[in-house]
């Protein structure tokens, strides 16, 4: 059946569409000369010729190859493209470490209120009191949730939060005498951790996870000396396990004058139950697009606020929002500040959504988020552990990590299982991460899925395990029901084609 659909699709190529999966040419291969897709305001000032407005050598005559489309063509183009996508609103999206939870619709309405979306960042402070109040309140909410003393809302993403966090640590250590040289990073960490440390001028030393899938305090004690600036810990870690020795680890690091950085990507699992600030953490970044339901947007934008303890507050990026009497003000006067990591104040529209999310759940709702997220993950883990190899048994937090070890003898790898899941209507889990589990499948259901959805996913995973034994080729050639089948990534990398170079374009 599937093969047939594909074949008829090939026949139709260029003529129409295979069923309702539309083929959609590039913008540049559509339209007609002279078409415009929008109207501009009237010109109510003298219509001077360009040559009278700018020196001739600065003028551009044309942009060859630029689109020429009507509004309806543009709308149809992007609507069709949207149908080539899979999103949380369509179905289960259990990408581990990414926290693909439902994005509440009210939050999408409130950030668009003109007072938020149509406010200029340089408006006089008297005209932005609502925005500043929201930022001030959000800082307080995040501080309480995390147990940190202050929060900078400036970083545009978790990765930028990591840069800022490591810069705060560096600035603090410099104020204590010297910045030090090395940063300890567990082998289960996100790739951003070592990359961020490197940008801040640190060498990375890898700490091996212990047999329980966690960092053992002894391993940190062995690596810790007075040249180590910090340890970067993700808690719960990328295996979905709570780093239960974190307090001892923090003590060891602090005793030698180092700092503890916490990657807060997995805060969703412990919100309302345990706070990084109470574990000895000095700096923490939040991912608003994970824990606080800001939509991922196909890869961005998110927001990555950074929580910090009081001793790091003098180094916060400027400006900070303060309250003077009843008024909110932007304070730029922080002489020891590390400066700025981006222009203006942060990804404000993302912060508005996160604020709305926290206010609609409240303390009981947020704790319930963690409880149900963890229950959902453990449910999947316990229902699938007889079918798939579970490298670290026992209970998990918000995500569980399986491997392909039981399917490998049939010549089936994690990638094949992931691709076959698409045929069952599910987005695959995160695969081949964390690196310490060979053929990892990292499943994070989040709290916003029903038990019925989880049961369907579990059934699909079990069916796929059967297929792996009975008909491995079915998996190796999957997916069968998507717009395109597996794509040639080797070709993409060997002969990079990164832009359209077609008709009429003067580009080389």
């Amino acid at each position, binding site marked *: 059946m599937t093969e047939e659909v594909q074949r008829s699709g090939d026949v139709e190529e260029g003529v129409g569409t295979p069923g309702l999966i539309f083929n959609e040419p590039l913008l540049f291969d559509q339209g007609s000369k002279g078409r415009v897709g929008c109207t501009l305001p009237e010109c109510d000032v003298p219509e001077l010729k360009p040559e009278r407005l700018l020196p001739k050598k600065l003028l*551009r005559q044309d942009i060859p190859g630029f689109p020429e489309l009507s509004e309806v063509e543009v709308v149809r183009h992007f609507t069709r493209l949207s149908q080539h*996508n899979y999103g949380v609103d369509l179905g289960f999206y259990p990408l581990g470490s990414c926290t693909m939870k439902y994005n509440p619709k009210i939050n999408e309405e409130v950030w668009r209120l003109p007072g938020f979306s149509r406010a200029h960042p340089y408006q006089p402070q008297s005209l932005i009191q609502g925005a500043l109040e929201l930022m001030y309140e959000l800082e307080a909410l995040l501080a309480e949730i995390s147990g940190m003393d202050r929060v900078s809302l400036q970083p545009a993403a978790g990765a930028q939060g990591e840069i800022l966090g490591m810069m705060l640590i560096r600035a603090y250590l410099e104020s204590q005498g010297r910045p030090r040289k090395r940063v300890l990073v567990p082998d289960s960490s996100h790739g951003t951790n070592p990359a961020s440390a490197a940008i801040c001028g640190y060498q990375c030393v890898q700490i091996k996870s212990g047999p329980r899938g966690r960092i053992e305090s002894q391993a940190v004690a062995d690596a810790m000396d007075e040249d180590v600036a910090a340890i970067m810990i993700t808690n719960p870690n990328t295996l979905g396990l709570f780093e239960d020795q974190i307090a001892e680890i923090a003590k060891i690091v602090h005793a030698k004058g180092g700092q503890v950085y916490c990657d807060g990507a997995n805060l969703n699992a412990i919100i309302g*139950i345990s706070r990084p600030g109470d574990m000895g953490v000095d700096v923490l970044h939040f991912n608003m697009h994970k824990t606080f339901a800001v939509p991922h947007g196909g890869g961005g934008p998110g927001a990555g606020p950074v929580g910090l303890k009081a001793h790091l507050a003098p180094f916060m990026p400027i400006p900070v929002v303060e309250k003077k009497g009843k008024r909110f003000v932007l304070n730029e006067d922080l002489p020891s500040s590390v400066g700025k990591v981006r*222009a203006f104040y942060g990804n404000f529209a993302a912060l508005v959504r996160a604020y709305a999310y926290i206010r609609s759940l409240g303390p009981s709702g947020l*704790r319930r988020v963690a409880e149900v997220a963890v229950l959902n993950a453990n449910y999947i*883990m316990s229902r699938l552990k007889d079918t798939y190899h579970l490298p670290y048994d026992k209970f998990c937090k918000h995500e569980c990590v399986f491997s392909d070890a039981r399917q490998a003898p049939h010549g089936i790898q994690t990638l094949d299982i992931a691709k076959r899941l*698409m045929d069952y209507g599910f987005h695959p889990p995160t695969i081949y991460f964390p690196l310490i589990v060979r053929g990892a499948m990292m499943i994070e259901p989040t709290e916003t899925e029903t038990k019925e959805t989880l049961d369907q996913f579990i059934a699909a995973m079990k069916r796929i395990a059967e297929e792996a034994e009975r008909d491995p080729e079915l998996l190796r050639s999957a997916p069968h029901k998507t717009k395109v089948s597996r794509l040639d990534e080797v070709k993409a990398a060997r002969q990079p084609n*990164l832009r359209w170079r077609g008709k009429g*374009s003067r580009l080389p």
Partner: protein
Amino acid sequence: MQYIPNTEADCRAMLDAVGVRSSEELFADIPSKLRLKRGLNLAPPLSETGLQRHMRGLADKNADVDRYASFLGAGAYNHFIPAAVSHLVFRSEFYTAYTPYQPELSQGTLQAIYEYQTLICQLTGMEVANASMYDGSSALAEAILMAHRINGRREVVLPRSVHPEYRSVCRTYVSTLGLQLHEAPYTDQGATDLKTVRAAISNRTSAVVVQSPNFFGVLESLDELAEVAHRAGALLIVTVAEPVSFGIVRSPGESGADIVVGEGQPFGNHLNFGGPYLGFFASKDAYLRNMPGRLVGQTTDKVGRPGYVLTLATREQHIRREKATSNICTNEGLCALAATVHLSLLGRVGLRELALLNLRKTAYAKAAISALRGCELRFTGPTFNELVVRVKRGTPAQVNRALLAKRIIGGLELGRFYPELSDCLLICVTEQNSREEIDALSKTMGSGR
């Protein structure tokens, strides 16, 4: 609880399947001393209507550019956004998707990014563009780091006519890596002083940075700067905060730029009180492997149909970890999508018309303001849609107060960033400003009240 569908009964059944009595047991691995022994001290939950009311209340305490006439620019621009942009960007197939790691389920995002990369190459006159960065300022910082990776040199010329916040971000980003940033002054034209750049440049110079239109709205002489930079073996990095100018101004690529970065907010993205915005990043094919950020490439599937994938990922953090070209993960996808849709609607004809409209309105404002006795143009160079006005009677703050009394948000008071320009305002005029608004602006500026 509306976002958590499982009922107590559902949870009970799941707990039974897991083999525990309560969810408490699932948290048993968290040591007791690390447990929060109380509830979070936060306000109680709001209902949807309660939340709506609360958020409206906050939003209403802000002014917005629909209810006020605004002449603010300086890196964030108020342009018209067609309704089709919002409608398409709010399709949840786009905004509730993740980074397109699984290409078979993400062809929509991937094709749109490929189109975005093409549009950015066409606008900038460059050969390769990435799938976007956080904003113009961090894109510039990344460009400086990239130039250092390419030639290993450690000095950068960063003129004062570059957006002060961009410069501040660059300082923060390079501070730990020991790169030296050298300032260059501006001339009475409002352009970067070529003589100083010539004197500052040597075989230790990694890159010369220039913003055009620069922070004062003035268009820089890119050809000369390119020549000066290239003669010393340095790269020319051009940053553009107002890309609508691409519609009428010669592209940086044609002038010999090696890296072109900037702010894409003016295309389809709201002001959003400063973010999220869209950093664009383009360069030459030769430097492809030194680029930061995501890249989408075209390829084929098993039966030869065209399709798109994230590619050349070995530059990135998830593979190369501490040796990555950047730690960036974002593709700022939704902002890039808004820009792609807006640019598609404008197209070849519309973008040029839009740019010309900005130029004409600004010329009109310039003529009106320079005719005033109490004001003068501070710089003589050619501008796009911003101009620096020196206030001779009273102070810029007084002028702005007088404007505000007429529901006009005036220009940026430049003393905040340039002490020597504390008598100046940076005024931005776009297609959103009607002739009446411009007349009201100049009338109030002239009378001082």
